């Protein structure tokens, strides 16, 4: 049975919207990696736990999940700052294996926290305002996905503006470039690290809120989003916003098409396979940092 | 290509993005000599060594060692061929003891761990590293001790050619003299040819038989220490550094 053109176009459109949200998820990771050289193994698990949190909040507030971002964003910033201070900062000078192990530990803690609180069951939010399709002539636009994509793009551009046009952003970029020189210029590198890590986690909080407007919370989100965001960064590089957006959209579309044309189960495995392939064929440059 | 040349570098070039680190550099290192390689920061000294030892692949040019073309060969093969090096930014084996670290070097030439360990002890004693500290972990020793262990580790691989990359950087004057003596010993008694990359003039002028000067990726001039010290081109390139 050959799928109709409509179906394919629909799939691509959904994939594009998804891609924007993915780029929001990847942005936090990219910032932390670019500025601190730390790879947060637990990044996806923050999104996972965040999604469950949004589920609780949205059901209690009886509102659309996107509104929970009022709570999740500042909360996750604080959580990020706390994790940085307690876990990341103490291991900054230590050998890489310990640094990775510590973030693996954080991820493990988050996963089991979710297991303890939610028994590994998927959860979807009851009250979503925009979880429906609007039919246009050729395709239907899923409004929640559209809004998430739009908000993601807005935030990404906002962060880009922050980085390029403000003093803080300049300080962040200087630190990313060379932290020794930055500190010699009077930049408080410790504070920058704290800020960036907090921001990175805050973005995951926002992403969780947006995801829950049409998605479900489940314990596997951690590893699949985690790997997805890494694929995106490996593909798009750490360069700039355009690279990030481009690779996110490609990934989103591929995943969406696989789900429609092959099967949902295979589409689940796509992030993992893509990750391994990307690692093999991506030029040395990215990993030369190690 | 002359018979005495142990290493010959021909028209070596290497660029990183927009920066040309090496620009058509050609030079020879003769068997048995101590060649000093000097030049201001960014002259391409370390890049040269990295290209010879296989860490970088040169963009163009060739590297010949004992007549064999070793251009672009990976570092471990270069070590097997007989070229060793020490590190500008120290690279200790933090969680291994001193004797273990040097044994790892000695294992290049023998499979037997016991033999390698004996060799490692010999080398460490030859270099003058105190026996009482053989069992100390890499993370617990001082900078001068790191340099000695680095030397020992490299020498244990029985190289014919040894590059020392700013080996006395960060050392006190008396420690510099210690290293200078050790190096001369290695050259004379162990018959190891040396390429000494250095900034500290007093040291490199002292130990070298011959000197090449690099500047902005190019070979500026070469000659005896005395000749090079007087050369106006060299003085100009180095404007601002301390006199010899």
């Amino acid at each position, binding site marked *: 049975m050959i799928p109709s053109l409509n179906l394919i176009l629909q799939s691509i459109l959904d994939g594009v919207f998804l891609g924007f949200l993915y780029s929001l998820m990847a942005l936090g990771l990219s910032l932390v990696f670019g500025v601190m050289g730390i*790879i947060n*193994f637990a990044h996806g698990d923050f999104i996972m736990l965040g999604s469950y949190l949004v589920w609780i909040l949205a059901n209690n507030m009886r509102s659309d999940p996107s509104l929970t971002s009022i709570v999740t964003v500042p909360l996750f910033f604080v959580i990020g700052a706390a994790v940085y201070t307690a*876990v990341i900062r103490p*291991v900054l000078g*230590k*050998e*890489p*294996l310990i*640094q*990775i*192990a*510590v973030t*693996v*530990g954080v991820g*493990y*803690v988050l996963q*089991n*926290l979710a*297991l*303890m609180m939610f*028994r590994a069951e998927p959860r979807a939010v009851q009250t979503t305002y925009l979880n429906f399709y609007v039919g246009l002539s050729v395709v239907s636009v899923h409004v929640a996905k559209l809004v998430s994509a739009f908000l993601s793009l807005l935030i990404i551009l906002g962060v880009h503006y922050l980085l390029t046009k403000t003093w803080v952003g300049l300080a962040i970029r200087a630190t990313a470039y060379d932290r020794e020189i930055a500190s010699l210029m009077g930049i408080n590198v410790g504070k920058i690290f704290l800020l960036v890590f907090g921001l990175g986690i805050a973005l995951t909080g926002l992403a969780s809120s947006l995801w829950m407007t049409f998605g479900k919370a489940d314990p596997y989100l951690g*590893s699949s989003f985690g*790997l997805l965001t*890494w694929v995106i960064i490996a593909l798009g590089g750490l360069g700039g916003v355009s690279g990030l957006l481009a690779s996110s959209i490609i990934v989103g579309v591929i995943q969406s098409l696989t789900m429609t044309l092959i099967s949902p*189960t295979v589409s*689940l*495995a796509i992030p*993992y*396979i893509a990750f*391994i392939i990307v*690692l*093999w064929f991506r030029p040395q440059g990215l*990993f030369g940092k*190690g | 290509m002359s018979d005495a040349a142990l290493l010959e570098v021909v028209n070596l070039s290497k660029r990183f993005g927009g920066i040309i680190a090496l620009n058509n550099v050609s030079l020879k290192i003769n068997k048995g000599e101590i060649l000093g390689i000097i030049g201001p920061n960014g002259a391409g000294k370390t890049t040269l060594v990295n290209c010879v*030892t296989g*860490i970088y692949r040169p963009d163009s040019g060739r590297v010949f060692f004992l007549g064999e073309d070793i251009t672009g060969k*990976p*570092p*471990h093969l270069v*070590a097997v061929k007989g070229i*060793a*090096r020490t590190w500008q930014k120290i*690279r*200790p*084996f*933090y*969680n*291994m003891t001193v004797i273990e*670290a040097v*044994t*790892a*070097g000695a*294992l*290049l030439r023998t*499979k037997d*761990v016991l033999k390698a360990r004996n060799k490692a002890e010999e080398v460490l004693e030859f270099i003058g590293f105190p026996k009482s500290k053989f069992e100390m972990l890499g993370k617990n020793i001082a900078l001068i001790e790191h340099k000695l262990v680095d030397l020992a*580790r*490299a020498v*244990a*691989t029985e190289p014919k050619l040894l590059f020392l990359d700013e080996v006395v950087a960060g050392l006190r004057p008396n420690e510099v003299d210690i290293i200078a003596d050790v190096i001369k010993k290695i050259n004379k008694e162990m018959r190891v040819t040396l390429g000494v990359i250095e900034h500290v003039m007093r040291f490199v002028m002292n130990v070298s038989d011959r000197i090449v000067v690099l500047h902005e990726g190019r070979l500026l001039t070469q000659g005896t220490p005395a000749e090079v010290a007087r050369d106006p081109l060299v003085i100009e390139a180095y404007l601002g550094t301390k006199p010899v």
Partner: protein
Amino acid sequence: MDSRTLSSIGLPALLVILVGMAVPFLVGFNQYYVLLALQSVVMASIALAWNIIGGYAGQLDLASFAYIGLGGILATMLMMNYNVTPWLGMFLGAGISATLAFVIGYPLFRFGIKGVWYALSTAALVVILHEVSIMVLGPFDYYIPFVEGWYYLRFRTWENLYYFSLVVLASIISLNLYISRSKIGYYLKAIREDEVAAEAVGIDIRKYKLLALVIYASILGFIGYIYIVSQRTFSYNTFSGPQSVYVAIIGIVGGLGSVSGVFTAALVLKIVEEYLRGYLGGVLPGLHLLLFGVLLIAVGILRPEGLSTLTDTLARKIKTRVRGGARE
């Protein structure tokens, strides 16, 4: 190899067997405790295999249960469906896991993938196998039909399998100790400490990392059958990412490269897990695992060498006691 080295490698293993064999007697052959002892011994074996790639070679491998599952399920299904004895099956399991390790490791190491990227790749590997096995095996738990005898390595009570596992554990301990003192061990540790410096003294880092990986995977593929039998079932969930992380936790908490440390950590954590699961399992599933995560973080921050300094000192004391006693 001289006799002193031989005894250094062999004695600890022998000691483990002797002390271990006493355990079933000490617990009065209570099957709950014998099974617990069996599972602890299996866990220790897995962690000590991990020690080769993680502790010696310094690669944070998170795919242990990819290899355990693959080898173990192969051996088990061969027994269930074709009556193939696990004595052959376990070696076949070792072979298939070694092959997988080679197929994955060769390109990974050739492209110089290390650190976090390596960890992520191995995490991805386990999940891929997990997803693939759902498609192949279906979302079912497979119970192994009961057959008895040494031919099948299965018995009415757990002691015999436990004794066999003790021998396996002892062999793995000896292997670790042997590697530690051999050229491979020196080279792996150098690679762990500083790859660039290691290459400069002639070490072919790709070759040795791959060697460590294949040895590690082979051991896991071999043990897989024992693991599955001790769990009594297998399924797609045997390919467990979290369990693989747990193995790494043991390896790090025990102390990278410390045989005594990893051995101790495996036993201690298994017992703690069992205790916590018994008391709190119904109320708060996953609490013990959460605590282990916290433990990993704490060890990484406060005491990266893990238990090793404690256990190594203890091991040395035991060694001098035994040597002294043997001489009398």
